[in-house]
C-alpha cells in the first residue's frame, strides 16, 4: 500500500505447531529473532516434528504450500493470494488464518484503504488550494474505487500495481500528501 493502513496481529493456537520448510532468508531471520515456540524452521520435510503443519516454500508437498512467484498460498485444495512490500504482513496472514477469515479481512483492509485514499484525496485538494498541488486527486479517487470494490484476494495484484504507481508519484512530490 502507498500509505499505512493498519497493524496486523496474528494469533496462533498453542496446540498447533508449524514447520516452515526452506523458507526465504528474511522470514527465517525474522522467526529466529522472534523465537515463537510453535514455529520450527527446517531445510527438509524430514526435519519437521510429527503432527506439525508443514509450510513449504519451494515445493507443493506440504499441508500449506507457498508460491513466492505467484504470491499465493495453497492449503486444503484452495488458493489465496497476498501482496507485500518488505514486510510479510499478508503472507503470514495467508499462512496462519482460516481461508474465509483471510478473505474477509482482506476485504476489510481494502475498505479501510479505500476510505484512507479518499481522505488523502480530500487532503490533496485542500492543500492544492493553499498552493501545494500534487495532482494525485484522480489517482487517489480511482484507487479508492478499486480498493473499495475488491471481492477476493486474487485482485490484490492489480491493487499492488496501482499502489506502487501512487507511491512513486507521491514520493517525487516536494509537498507530499502521505
Amino acid at each position, binding site marked *: 500500500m502507498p*500509505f*499505512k*493502513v*493498519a497493524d496486523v496481529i496474528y494469533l496462533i493456537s498453542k496446540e498447533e505447531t508449524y514447520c516452515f520448510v526452506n523458507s526465504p532468508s528474511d522470514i527465517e531471520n525474522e522467526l529466529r529473532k522472534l523465537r515463537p515456540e510453535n514455529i520450527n524452521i527446517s531445510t527438509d520435510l524430514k526435519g519437521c516434528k510429527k503432527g506439525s503443519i508443514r509450510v513449504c516454500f519451494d515445493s507443493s508437498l506440504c499441508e500449506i504450500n507457498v508460491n513466492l512467484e505467484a504470491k499465493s498460498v495453497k492449503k486444503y485444495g484452495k488458493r489465496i493470494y497476498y501482496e507485500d512490500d518488505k514486510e510479510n504482513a499478508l503472507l503470514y496472514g495467508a499462512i496462519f488464518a482460516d481461508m474465509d477469515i483471510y478473505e474477509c479481512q482482506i476485504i476489510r483492509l481494502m475498505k*479501510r484503504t479505500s*476510505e*484512507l485514499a*479518499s*481522505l*488523502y484525496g*480530500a*487532503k490533496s485538494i*485542500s*492543500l492544492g488550494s*493553499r*498552493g*501545494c498541488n500534487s495532482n494525485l486527486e484522480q489517482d487517489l479517487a480511482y484507487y479508492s474505487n478499486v480498493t473499495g470494490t475488491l471481492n477476493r484476494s486474487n485482485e490484490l495484484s492489480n491493487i499492488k500495481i496501482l499502489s506502487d504507481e501512487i507511491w512513486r508519484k507521491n514520493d517525487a512530490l*516536494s*509537498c*507530499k500528501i*502521505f
Partner: protein
Amino acid sequence: MLYHVKSFNKNGQLKIQEMAFVLVAILVFFAIVALFYISVRVQNLKGSVEAQRDDEAKTMVRKLAESPEFSLSVENCINCVDFDKVLMLKEKAEYQSFYPLDYLAIKVIGALKEGECTRSNYPECESLTLIKKKEDFGTPIGAFAALCRQEFFGQDRYIKCELGKIYASGENIK
C-alpha cells in the same frame, strides 16, 4: 456482717461497671481505628482506580493519534497528528460510527484565534470537533499531541507542529 456483705456487693458492682466501661471504651477505640483505616484504604483504592482509568483513557487517545486516519505519515514523528488530514476527516460521515465515542475533539493549545476549524478559517482556529453524538457526553479525557500541518513560506514548504490536546469521551471511556 450484713453491712460488710452489702459493701462487698457494691464494690464488686462498681468494678464490674468499670470493667464494662473500659471494655466499651476499648471497643469504641478499635472501631474508630478500624473506620479510619477503612476510609484511608477506600480513598487510596479510589485514587488508584481513577489513576488507572485515566492512564487507560490516555493510552486510548494516544492510540487514536497513532491510527492511520490521524497520524502524520510524511515525517517519522511519534504522536504527531496530521491536522490537514483530520480536518478532512471531519467531513466524512462514515467515520462518525467508526470510533466508539460520543465526543472526539482536538484543541490547539495557545491558538491565536478562537472558533471551530473549517476549510475557510483553517489553520487560524482553535478547535476541531470530529464527533459529538450528544450534548451530555460527560467529562472528556484529554491527552497531549503534536498537531502538524503543511505550511508555506513563499516557495518554501515545511511541516509546522503545534501543541494540541485530543479530547475523547464515550461509554468505552469510563
